[in-house]
């Protein structure tokens, strides 16, 4: 890189450490004036952390930030704003019961004799709206407008503050295809105006469509920056996924049995926006196979699992477990029918953190006659059972069965959940990101457990964001993208899988089913 290049923002050798983990490890990012610069990476690659450092939400331990070649300190969002840096957050920061206009002026209000003056602001907002094609209704309440318009409000917030450097954090995750197209147009408009854009995403098609350059992060490290004109999707996919770590697990060939889980045309509403999160998904899982649902976070996996396990009702569609219709069954009934669920969030769902380990180990079966008699818990039986599980699954803790779950390490908390769910002897085991945030040893252990279940002839449905995990464990891979199954493979190359996950390729249903 030559000195002559005109960088508006330079983040040099940024290192940000959270307790026990390096979220950003010596990352350098240079943003040219008037370019659209994409930031690509898998979940946990450190993209959001890096942008939070730039926006003043986090302070980096090492490294410097330069604006127009001069070193600057960004301690909070106010500093960022003064430097002309604005950000559209992934989760919008809008006050729902305020009007669009009030949201835009909040924090930079004009006043006269202490009274709010909105006329000037309204004119400016309308002018900006006109200029960039950002259609909004200034007097509508935010709670009444569509997600797309809410995003336009967020963009107008930046423009109203005359920001020159615009950060978009996964802006397309909640938008419809039409809205995405509009957003791309708007971004091009900004570029034409000379504004500089940082665009966080993991959708390759969007990068190819709109970005000038792309920087890739992987596991907190900087991989490289490429010109979009000189690259291909395949290359980007390879950079994002990497090939350095590949677990090879000894796996017997599969011995597929009857259909255990059968899902037909499942639709689940989203809590975050008005669109459905799961849009008519159908698939089967057989005894003796691990079916993996691969995809990038936020493509409907969470809602799919909630629908399957009964945490959220279905809008339409049916679920059958071992030939029995459980579409409207309660959570407890599903559990009794042979469904086990290793949840995505072990703190929110998986454990009662203030309960002891033994209390947590019977969370799904404390009501069984084995553990209670006329409503009175058989403490001795619970203790014996818990000790058995602790021994069998090697769950380690300070005081064995009476340890408070909160005080256990993440890996052992997860082992406790897995012990509980597997020991229920389920027909179907649903495991959602079972190795999230765990160290290598624990991951290997959990993978072996899942394979053991499969070899025992149980059906395993694994939802994972980790491609390594998907590849090494699955007998069959379903790719989920924007709430739909876009691919169904017995085996597939990594780069290929990346393309499907990023929505760059899809097989239609018939082809997928064959």
């Amino acid at each position, binding site marked *: 890189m030559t000195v002559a290049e005109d960088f508006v923002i330079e983040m040099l050798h940024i290192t940000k450490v959270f307790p026990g983990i390096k979220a950003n490890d010596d990352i350098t990012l240079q943003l040219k004036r008037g370019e659209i610069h994409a930031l690509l990476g898998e979940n946990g690659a450190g993209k959001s952390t890096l942008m939070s450092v730039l926006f003043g939400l986090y302070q980096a331990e090492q490294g410097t930030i330069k604006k127009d070649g001069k070193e600057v300190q960004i301690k909070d969002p106010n500093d960022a704003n003064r430097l002309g840096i604005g950000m559209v957050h992934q989760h919008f*920061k*809008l006050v729902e019961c305020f009007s669009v206009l009030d949201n835009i002026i909040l*924090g930079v209000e004009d006043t006269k004799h202490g009274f709010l003056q909105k006329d000037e602001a309204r004119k400016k907002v309308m002018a900006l709206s006109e200029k960039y094609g950002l259609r909004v209704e200034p007097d509508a309440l935010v709670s009444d407008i569509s997600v797309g318009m809410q995003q336009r409000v967020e963009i107008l917030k930046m423009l109203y503050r005359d920001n020159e450097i615009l950060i978009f954090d996964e802006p397309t995750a909640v938008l419809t295809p039409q809205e995405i197209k509009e957003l791309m147009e708007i971004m091009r408009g900004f570029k034409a105006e000379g504004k500089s854009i940082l665009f966080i995403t993991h959708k390759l098609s969007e990068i190819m469509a709109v970005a000038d350059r792309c920087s890739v992060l992987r596991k907190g490290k900087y991989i490289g920056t490429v010109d979009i004109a000189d690259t291909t999707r395949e290359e980007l996919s390879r950079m994002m996924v990497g090939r350095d770590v590949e677990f090879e697990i000894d796996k017997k060939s599969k011995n597929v049995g009857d259909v255990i889980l059968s899902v037909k045309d499942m639709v689940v509403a989203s809590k975050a926006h008005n669109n459905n999160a799961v849009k008519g998904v159908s698939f089967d899982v057989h005894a003796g196979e691990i079916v993996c649902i691969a995809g990038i976070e936020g493509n409907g996996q969470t809602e799919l699992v909630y629908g399957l396990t009964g945490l959220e009702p279905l809008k339409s569609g049916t679920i059958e477990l071992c030939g029995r219709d459980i579409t409207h069954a309660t959570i407890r009934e599903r559990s009794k029918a042979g469904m086990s669920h290793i949840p995505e969030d072990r703190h929110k769902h998986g454990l009662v953190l203030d309960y002891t380990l033994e209390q947590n180990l019977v969370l799904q079966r404390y009501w069984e006659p084995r553990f209670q008699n006329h409503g009175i818990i058989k403490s001795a039986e619970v203790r014996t059972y818990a000790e058995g599980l602790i021994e069998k699954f090697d769950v380690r803790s300070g005081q064995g069965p009476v340890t408070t779950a909160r005080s256990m390490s993440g890996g052992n908390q997860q082992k406790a959940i897995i012990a509980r769910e597997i020991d229920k002897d389920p027909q179907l085991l649903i495991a959602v990101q079972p190795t999230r945030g765990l160290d290598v040893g624990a991951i290997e252990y959990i993978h072996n457990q899942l394979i053991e279940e499969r070899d025992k002839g149980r059906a395993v449905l694994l939802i994972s964001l980790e491609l390594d995990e998907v590849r090494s464990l699955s007998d069959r891979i379903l790719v989920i993208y924007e709430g739909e199954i876009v691919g169904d493979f017995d085996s597939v190359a990594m780069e290929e899988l990346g393309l499907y996950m990023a929505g760059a390729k899809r097989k239609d249903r018939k082809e997928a089913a064959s």
Partner: protein
Amino acid sequence: MSILANIISLTIVFAVPLMLVALGGMYSEHSGVINLALEGIMVIGALCACFTLQAFDTSGFGKVHPQIAMLVAIIVAAVTGMVFSLLLAFAAINLKADQTIGGTALNTFAPAFAVVMTWAIQGQGLTTIQIPSWIRITQENFGLEPGKGFWDMLIFKYFYLTTPIAIVLFFAAWILMYKTKFGLRLRACGEHPQAADSVGINVYRMRYAGVLISGFLAGIGGIAYTIAVGSGFNSSVGGYGFLALAVMIFGNWKPVQILGSAVFFALFKVIAAYNSSIPFLPKFEGMKDQSSLYQMLPYIVTMIVLIFTSKHSQAPKAEGIPYDKGSR
């Protein structure tokens, strides 16, 4: 007619504390802090204002300049209310404590403190602080002849400085909440503190402001209540702090509606006291103590309203949740 004048006049004088305190609760909740301590703050404000009035009475200043003395007493009530509410602000904002438990502590503290102080200052067993009679605004203040006509009764029977001040504070509240940048920012903090933070608003400072203003208003509300009751201050405000919470909820956390519901609740209080002498009220033959019935009604109405409004409650979304800058 004189009954009607009496009822209207009494309704106004009882609506004043209810509205002031409910407005106080509104400020606090719009900033994101549930202020259960309104009752306690009222007690402290009333206590200090009553002592001030008593001091003016003994010094003789009060008889010469009654309204100046009254104004000073009101200011004392407001300031002590603010100081007392600092305890809630500190616990709720800095220590991120449970706001309802913190409020309960202040409610337990205030009446006990008032009794202990009253004893200490007035002597053993004297639990009531008498309010001097010169605080009332009379016809003479305006150079008018004293009279017993309808308008005389309506305006001057229970006319105290707190009433015009309450009217001013009401308009101030409406303007402050909806016409100034302070109001906009305050409401943002109670609805979505993360959003407020992301546009550079200091959430902690706004919440302190909200709680302190509620202390200011509840303090004045305390003395206004004591004046309205008229029988002196005996370390209690009769649950008006809690009633004001109901007024605030009933008023949808909005100034104009709070004014309306304060009048509504005050009217029921007055009817409860005067039900036997009001000709147009339904008479339940043979029922004794009908005042309890009328006193109970506002609470029942509030509960029924809550059932219907809970699905789309206008309550500030982030109220009661301590704000932590670290979490996103």
